[in-house]
């Protein structure tokens, strides 16, 4: 793949109390972000386990962002 056109698929695991609320706000403000970013709301990022990050990679994402 040409590195100049490579757009990584990113999974964002966002805490509902902060990062997800921020993403919500970004949406309300009509701020754009790439479609290659997929946001999943989690009750708390403390709940995220290593195996979930691995499963995301197994499913083909290029990176995982844990935001909380």
């Amino acid at each position, binding site marked *: 793949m040409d590195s100049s056109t490579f757009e990584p698929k990113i999974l964002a695991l966002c805490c509902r109390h902060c990062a997800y609320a921020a993403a919500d706000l970004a949406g309300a403000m009509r701020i754009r972000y790439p479609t290659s970013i997929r946001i999943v709301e989690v009750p708390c990022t403390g709940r995220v*386990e290593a195996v979930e990050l691995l499963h995301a990679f197994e499913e083909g994402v290029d990176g995982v962002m844990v935001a909380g």
Partner: protein
Amino acid sequence: MIVGEQKSLEEILGLLGDAKKVLVAGCGTCVTVCFAGGEKEVGILSSALRMKSELDGHPIAVDEVTVQRQCEWEYIDPLKERLAEYDVVLSLACGIGVQAMNERFPNIITLPGINTTSLSLPVEQGVWEERCQACGDCVLGITFGICPIARCSKQLMNGPCGGSQNGVCEVDPSIPCAWQLIWDRANMFGQMERLLEVQPPKNWGQSRDGGPRKIVREDLRLTERE
């Protein structure tokens, strides 16, 4: 508790050889609480095996299961039906669990995914220190509750030796001298004279030196003795 450490991914892949379909079997008891082979570790290792084997160009189908105790027949018997579809089982249980699987299911090879290391105490989160060697003839009653078999590098029955310096062992300064600890504790109770009695050589016949050990409790057996 029985404590183990996971083998490296490279070693595990080497053990798996040409296997195309693998069942990773965890154990819900000792190796779960020492974070070596419980449900979580089964999930992480399985995922890693799937990705690594795919990257290496020889994808392995990996399924996961964790039983409450791999060292008891009644917990592993329910696995019997599903084993036929696998080339090999990778057990993350201790050596007892791995052997239980091989004995119970002789038609499929069960490989070890962890190294069973010791009978240890979790002295703090993430740190396990050896406390027992299952010698079969407990001496804690005469050593003030500190085991010289498991904790003295030389397994001395009368100590300390000349290698004890400032309370630590000459083998490694991170090892507290067990006999220093024993004497300190005897001193605390004002009973140092009890340690002046020279202990005779230990009977290692009750340990591994007498061959594999076995306990038979006739009062607990359900079948008649042959």
